[in-house]
């Protein structure tokens, strides 16, 4: 009987090294050694969009598109989008911005309701929150027409497109652009990144979606984990260079990945 499932040794080692370096940097932060992190522009953009909505007296929309949380490829960006929602809803409560979060799946709806409710409680503004109007469950299919219609009738001034985005990325961002909303878009769905980058005023590309959730958590031990992820990037860059050299020299490394 083998100790490790065949073909998964390299994956296991990669996870151990990268997870180890993330945990190392988090532990280091506990002892006060906090790495210097580049400030993500999106943090200021969230304030800017919500501030614009307050000044214009119009709502901000927080859209997440596909939130089927039983799908592994959708789960991670959705969790990241919820983490950013927690921060955004709290800032919206603080600034007094109108906020609307339509959700297309039951499980995600219950989580989004809890996140928004907690954000308003944290600001002691639960009296200002009408939860059934702020977080709305819209069955998938009905959501497109409802959201587009309300984007125009509400004349929304700002929109966040974060999470796992598919074909609706074009439909919603294009309408938001026509309404004149200021937009922040971010997804890890590679084939829809170009749409969000091209149409939105500001964008988060791939990994930045996850980084923003950690960055806005207000906990230095959490944001320090981003430095651990950079170790993974260095390893990846090193392996790409090494692999290119070996392949050029005619040495195959395919065997390594079947161990």
């Amino acid at each position, binding site marked *: 009987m083998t100790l490790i499932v065949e073909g998964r040794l390299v994956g296991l080692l990669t996870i151990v090294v990268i997870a180890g370096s*993330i945990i190392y940097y988090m532990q280091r932060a506990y002892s006060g050694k906090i790495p210097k992190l580049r400030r993500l522009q999106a943090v200021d953009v969230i304030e800017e969009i919500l501030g614009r909505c307050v000044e214009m007296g119009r709502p901000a929309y927080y859209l997440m598109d596909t939130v089927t949380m039983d799908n592994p490829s959708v789960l991670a960006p959705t969790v990241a989008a919820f983490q950013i929602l927690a921060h955004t809803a709290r800032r919206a409560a603080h600034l007094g911005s109108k906020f609307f979060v339509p959700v297309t799946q039951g499980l995600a709806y219950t989580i989004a309701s809890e996140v928004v409710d907690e954000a308003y409680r944290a600001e002691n503004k639960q009296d200002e929150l009408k939860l059934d109007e702020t977080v709305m*469950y819209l069955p998938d299919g009905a959501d497109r027409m409802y959201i587009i219609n309300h984007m125009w009738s509400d004349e929304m001034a700002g929109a966040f497109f974060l999470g796992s985005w598919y074909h609706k990325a074009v439909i919603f961002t294009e309408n938001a652009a026509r309404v004149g909303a200021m937009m922040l878009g971010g997804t890890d769905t590679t084939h829809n990144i170009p749409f969000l980058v091209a149409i939105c005023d500001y964008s988060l590309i791939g990994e930045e979606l996850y980084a923003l959730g950690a960055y806005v958590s207000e*906990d230095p031990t959490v944001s320090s984990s981003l430095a651990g992820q950079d170790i993974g990037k260095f390893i990846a860059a090193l392996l790409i260079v090494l692999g290119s050299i070996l392949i050029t020299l005619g040495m195959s490394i395919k065997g390594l990945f079947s161990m």
Partner: protein
Amino acid sequence: MSERLIKMQIPVILTAIIGLLMIIEFFFPMPAPVTSLNVTLRSFVTIISAAALILGTIVLTIYHSKKIGTRKSEWYYSIVYVLAFVFTAGLGVLDVRNTTFLWIYNNMTSPIGAALYSLTAFYITSAAYRVLRARNWNSAVLLVCALIVLLMLIPIGAILFPPVLPLGTWIRNIPSGAGFRGMIIGTSLGIMGLGVRVFMGRQKEHLGIREERRAPE
């Protein structure tokens, strides 16, 4: 049990234990009872999702009923929703294989969904018109690359200008492919970081949990 234990500690501990079980099962050969436990746990996701779907539908129906009761703006659309919901759900509950129920799904819900999906084509065209303008060097490069790839993909493109075939293929495979691989590596690292933070219970905003609360002013 205290509220803190129920709302904060139990979800975090459960997430960590179940998450680690799934990872261990992926990398290490496990005895049959552990594999069977993991299969059962995964089926819980479907059950919880179904329960949450019912909850969401109930909340939506209450919202629309209130809207009708208070005659809020566009309340008449809510009547359509409530009637459609009661009629369709009633038929489905009585017999899910009922021909009228299936007819509603096949001839109303599906075509509406397909029609809405097809809107994407028009929005993509409109978005492309908005984006593909040579305002600066970056957008000029994007415009030229997009035109080459577009010409490569349409049948007449290669007839009009044959070099678009190798050029378009090169753009898709080399600069675009390399960029996408970089993104995928970055995204995978981001997911790993997120997983570690969630399993360690350091990041739990997605559970609606925030430890500190501002004192009332």
